[in-house]
């Protein structure tokens, strides 16, 4: 026992603190995930409510129309038959509407699946163009026709990564871009193969990030958004996912009055497989 008697106590305390910090970080990450899920769900609910309302209403109308057609066919007089043929036309057009409505719902659900594959702990090879397309589908509810989305898909190789985590990063940056734009605007998503990385850029035509805020935006807890809109965790966590988990880089350029572009670089192959 050559060590001073208080040393093990100090070590223990340090270990305890480290464990506490780790558990708080995990909690924070989980909270962020829930916050972004909440936001996602709200926009999905909105996106699905109209088609569901339509389908339910159409179903009633078609049913009622068919009953009327049936009785018209039974009676057989000219006026009833004319009415029946009009009702059949209505049913045909409502069936076409139902098809569109179902496709809309299916599209949203397909986008959600990308997120549901979530917590597989192994990195796998994915096509990031496809992932971005799915994530863009989820933002449709939030953007509507207010924001025009332009895409420029480059020829890129499959990237070894945690797709669900990167999708969270994409979604976060896209939603931020959409919130930055006041009124009408444009978001441009571009992918390129550069050296041993894939370069994704997401540009908005928003007002730009104020110079005094530029050094703070990757810090956890910083937000310029109103209470209830942003958590101030999104970009901090995004940076962690891109740089620490994937060994890539996340940075931005911003010009007041012109807009902001976020750049995400992800290595095609994970060098340190253990860290992934």
């Amino acid at each position, binding site marked *: 026992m050559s060590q001073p008697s208080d040393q093990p106590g100090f070590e223990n305390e340090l270990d305890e603190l480290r464990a506490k910090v780790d558990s708080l970080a995990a909690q924070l990450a989980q909270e962020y995930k829930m916050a972004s899920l909440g936001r996602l769900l709200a926009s999905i*609910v*909105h*996106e*699905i*409510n*109209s*088609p*569901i*309302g*339509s389908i*339910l*209403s*159409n179903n*009633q*109308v078609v049913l*009622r*129309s068919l009953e009327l057609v049936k009785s018209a066919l039974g009676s057989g007089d000219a006026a009833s038959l004319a009415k029946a043929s009009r009702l059949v036309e*209505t049913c045909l*057009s*409502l069936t076409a*509407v139902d098809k*569109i*409505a179902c496709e809309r719902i299916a599209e949203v659900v397909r986008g959600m699946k990308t997120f549901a594959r979530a917590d597989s702990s192994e990195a796998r090879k994915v096509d990031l163009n496809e992932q971005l397309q799915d994530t863009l589908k989820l933002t449709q509810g939030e953007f*509507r*026709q*207010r924001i025009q989305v332009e895409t420029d898909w480059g020829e890129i190789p499959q990237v070894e990564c945690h797709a669900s985590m990167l999708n969270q990063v994409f979604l976060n940056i896209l939603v931020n871009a959409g919130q930055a734009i006041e009124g*009408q605007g444009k978001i441009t998503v571009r992918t390129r193969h550069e050296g041993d990385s894939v370069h994704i850029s997401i540009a908005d035509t928003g007002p730009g990030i104020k110079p005094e805020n530029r050094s703070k935006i990757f810090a956890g807890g910083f937000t310029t958004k109103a209470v209830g809109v942003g958590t101030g965790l999104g970009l901090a966590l995004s940076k962690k996912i891109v740089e620490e988990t994937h060994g890539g880089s996340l940075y931005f350029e911003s010009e007041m009055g012109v807009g902001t572009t976020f750049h995400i670089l992800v290595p095609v192959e994970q060098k340190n497989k253990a860290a992934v």
Partner: protein
Amino acid sequence: MIEKATVLIVDDEEMVITSVRAYLELETNFEVHGFTEPEQAVKYLEGNQVDICVSDYLMPRMSGIQFLTRAKHLQPEATRVLLTGHADKQSAIQAINEVSLYQYVEKPWENAQLLMIIQNGVERAQLMRELQATMSELASANSSLKDVQKKLLRAFL
């Protein structure tokens, strides 16, 4: 039963307009005018009387509240209803306070409930117009009565 009524529907989703129109045409003899662009609906309101305006909330270029505010300004007697998939308390409160909303309906809607709201809303608008017409008749009758009274007084004094 209401004889003739005009319903205006504004929703950026064509499918909602098609469905509500098909249902109303089956169940009522109301005239239904649907617009996917709020701006066009405003133009329609400038030249045509309607009994009820049913509007979506979240639309590009103009929100449902902005549209109903303009509708209220153009035709205050027409009943205003918000049909929204964006169900949050804040938008509901804002709508009730700013545009004196008659009803707030959430998507997906229930046809029978929507029909009842539209029928009651139409009846309300028509009664309001009737009341206004009667009141202005009363006012003009009152002023002609006063004229007669004046003449009588002059004749006697």
